[in-house]
């Protein structure tokens, strides 16, 4: 595996928050749910001992053609899933409350990304109309160069938004964008100007030589692209447009 050092960096950083400890330490309870879309990914739906429901996406289960279509590799989607959470955790509120926690953890002998099931349902466009949720979510998606944020890749429970599925993120310039619905909504509503807490978050990211852990957690070219996006947003005072990777 040629991303061993990035995996090691993410693994070493995780476990500080109580929810992370639970996701790392609790035993799996019973068998996985019977299926999860055979042929596209090998994601397993699992229960932890306390009843938390999680999804395990093994590195070996990445649909290679789909990953390559997005400019990813056969290894990066589970890494990026976990790295997105690491960045959200470092940025703190509101982003650590928006992004579904994700750890790198082994299940049944397979290394992979273990994501916490988010509350709510897919398909609801309400968050695109609600600045409380749309603004911070769009900032995060623009920063991480999320390539596929459609309403199936968030959950809304009527009062809270959760962002899920960050495998196709940390894109590079020129790589494919499928959906960026929250970023598009923020621009559509003339709300692209950065808020004070967003300026402060970018400052913290750029002032840290380790990019809040991202310099070691991402491949160097993708970490550099993250820093470049942060600088552009900070310089322009605006959230980047969809596809501005």
């Amino acid at each position: 595996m040629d991303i061993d050092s990035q995996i090691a960096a993410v693994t070493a950083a995780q476990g500080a928050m109580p929810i992370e400890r639970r996701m790392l330490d609790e035993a799996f309870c019973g068998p996985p749910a019977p299926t999860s879309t055979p042929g596209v990914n090998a994601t397993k739906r699992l229960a932890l001992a306390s009843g938390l429901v999680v999804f395990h996406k093994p590195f070996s289960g990445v649909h290679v053609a789909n990953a390559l279509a997005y400019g990813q590799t056969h290894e990066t989607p589970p890494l990026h899933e976990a790295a997105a959470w690491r960045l959200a955790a470092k940025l703190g509120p509101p982003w650590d409350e928006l992004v579904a926690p994700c750890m790198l953890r082994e299940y049944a002998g397979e290394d992979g990304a273990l994501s916490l099931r988010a509350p709510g349902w897919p398909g609801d466009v309400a968050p695109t109309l609600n600045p409380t949720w749309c603004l911070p979510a769009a900032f995060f998606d623009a920063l991480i160069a999320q390539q596929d944020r459609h309403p199936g890749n968030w959950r809304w429970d009527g009062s809270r938004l959760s962002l899920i599925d960050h495998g196709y993120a940390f894109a590079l310039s020129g790589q494919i964008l499928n959906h960026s619905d929250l970023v598009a909504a923020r621009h559509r509503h003339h709300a692209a100007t950065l808020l004070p807490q967003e300026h402060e978050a970018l400052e913290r990211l750029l002032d840290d030589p380790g990019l809040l852990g991202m310099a070691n957690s991402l491949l160097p070219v993708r970490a550099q692209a993250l820093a470049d996006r942060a600088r552009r947003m900070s310089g322009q005072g605006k959230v980047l447009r969809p596809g501005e990777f």
Partner: protein
Amino acid sequence: MIQVRFSTSEFNPDTQEWVEVPVAELIADEEEVTISGPHADWISPDISIIDPETTEHVTRADNTERWAQLLPFAYRDGELTVEISESAGARPADGAFHYPAAA
């Protein structure tokens, strides 16, 4: 005609077993997409999907049946199980939403 079945699972801690929960059924033919089921609103007819073989963006308006066959690539997170079958005899359920291909 393409039939797509969406389901999810809930864990029963007493029996330590997963119970399948139906979500929605989508039927695509040359002209129309029909979505029915208890959570038909969870399935968006407006998602475009990247075809991994060609890297093209495929929308419902482009090619309804091809779009339906690519739906598993839109729902990758593991919460929804997406099962595809080609069925000449599938009939839309009563109480469904209908989406014309050219919408």
